């Protein structure tokens, strides 16, 4: 098990190195560089040259990459070319915000999804089941930007105005304000993800409920509720966890759109900003952070899977 973990970590490291190299090359293929973007329509050839020299953009590519790797290894992620702020600070701030959003969405998805899926499984084939499955199905099919804009229109519009239309407020300024800014974007993400969890719980539970050991427990006199909670649910959670891990990847795509709709200052918009401004140090850290989160989440899901089901062993 430990050997498996180590090997996985090694390949994760390799993947991250690859990601950083690809991003570096790709961004240098794009027309223009950070200096062009900073000067914009005020650029003159001399101003451009001077700025490029100052930013080190006139050095050969390999040298620039090596220099970046060198400083990263010592923990220095550099300064954002477009924002003139330390990359680590900017990314940290945005990452934290996106994490809040993602976590809020995932928590709601689990808290709402698993009971819904359980309910659907217990009332299989009946109207409630149909209703739940249909609703979540539609939720996953409608693009997040449509759901988000609809929520914006109805709940944050001039008529109801229950929630702010955009942005983010620090926790320090008040928990209610902070929470209010999270609700609509989190709701949008939740609606998109609910179907996965509901489905998995429902089908996993449905399979398990017909298993022999459940019948044994029933014959022994255990109440149906106890059966569900004690035995069935634990096994049904296995695929749910894998789905959540897969959701993380899906989440990252969805999060960009949601952040755009609600102007939520998170990683998604930061990545777009970094690419549009050819901000190499910023983009590199963003790409690595996002790739790490994705890859580590999958890894964690595999480990959790193994922990929950003693029958699974990795070699």
């Amino acid at each position, binding site marked *: 098990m430990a050997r498996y973990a180590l090997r996985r970590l090694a*390949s994760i490291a*390799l*993947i991250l190195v*690859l*990601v950083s190299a*690809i*991003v570096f090359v*790709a*961004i240098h*293929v*794009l027309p223009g560089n950070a200096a062009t973007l900073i000067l914009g329509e005020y650029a003159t050839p001399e101003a451009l040259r001077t700025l490029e020299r100052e930013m080190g953009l006139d050095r050969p590519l390999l040298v620039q990459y090596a220099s970046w790797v060198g400083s990263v290894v010592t923990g220095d992620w550099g300064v954002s070319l477009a924002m003139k702020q330390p990359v680590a600070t900017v990314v940290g701030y945005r990452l934290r915000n996106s994490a809040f959003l993602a976590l809020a969405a995932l928590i709601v998805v689990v808290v709402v999804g698993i009971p819904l899926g359980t309910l659907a499984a217990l009332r299989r084939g009946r109207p409630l089941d*149909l209703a739940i*499955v*249909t609703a979540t*199905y*539609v939720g*996953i*099919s*409608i*693009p*997040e*930007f*449509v759901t988000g*804009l*609809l929520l*914006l*229109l109805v709940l944050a*519009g*001039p008529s109801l105005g229950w929630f702010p239309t955009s942005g983010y407020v620090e926790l320090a300024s008040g928990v209610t304000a902070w929470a209010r800014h999270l609700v609509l974007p989190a709701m949008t993400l939740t609606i998109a993800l609910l179907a996965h969890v509901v*489905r998995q719980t*429902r*089908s996993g539970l*449905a399979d398990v409920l017909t298993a022999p050991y459940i019948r044994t427990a029933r014959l022994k006199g255990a109440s149906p509720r106890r059966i569900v909670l004690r035995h069935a649910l634990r096994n049904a959670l296995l695929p749910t966890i894998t789905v959540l891990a897969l959701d993380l*990847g899906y989440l*990252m*795509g969805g999060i*960009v*759109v949601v952040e*755009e*709709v609600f102007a939520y200052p998170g990683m*998604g918009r930061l*990545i*777009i900003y970094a*690419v*549009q401004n050819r901000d190499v140090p910023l983009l590199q850290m*963003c*790409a690595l952070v*996002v*790739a790490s989160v*994705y*890859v580590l989440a999958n890894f964690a899901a595999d480990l959790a899977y193994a922990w929950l089901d003693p029958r699974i062993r990795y070699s």
Partner: protein
Amino acid sequence: MTSLPPALGVGGAILALVLALSFAAPWIAPFPTTEQHMLERLKPPGARFLLGTDQYGRDLLSRTLFGGRPALGLGLGAVALGLVLGVPIGLTAGYVGGRLDDLVMRVVDAMLAFPSLLLALLIITALGASTGHALLAIGVANGPGVARIVRSATLALREAEFVLAARARGERHLYVMFGEIFPNVLPPVIVEGTLRIGFAILAGASLSFLGLGVQPPAADWGLMIREARQYVFLSPWPLLVPGTALAFTIVAFNLFGDGLRDRLGAT
């Protein structure tokens, strides 16, 4: 058994309707998509403009009818590209096995680890935002996933009797791969493809919404919603009309794909 019983039927029916309307757009659309009526901007549904107008006074009904074309083209094209890229790779990796399989799967995993949005962003910024480049980006992002699935299916079939028989007959590897294994791998591939179309359309619309896909002044559902956003509190119709069309289409594809999967018995 996770989908609704009539999924195939319902999904298929909606799909047929969407495809028919998109195809017939040039004949049934009441206005040209670029015709502007400056004095009738952002109007709600009425006698002249059945579903209202957008910010330039263009007819929403006509634009929505035509707006399905880039959306569908993007979705179908991207998945087709993903299949074209992923199937040969998956087949080869699964069939040949060993070091090649390891290496290819390493690369595929790395690509899967690469945030697909970032990939799309880089491709599109490098080449320029357009429908074609969005198609390329989504297709390339789909490739690794398809490769994976095809590889698993190939691995399962590698030792099957008809394969061993073909090899014993002396058939070339290429024939075995594409002549024997591929037809048997087809059902899950078809199901996978159909399931992915819905998400490809969603991805394409998302890219257009972000300004990275179809460009103005074209009529496209994702782009229309992007343009509608600014005016959403002035008039909800530029959002609602293409939004509904988009949602119905994606639901239809997903339903159809799910129904197909159940029918063909694959997972």
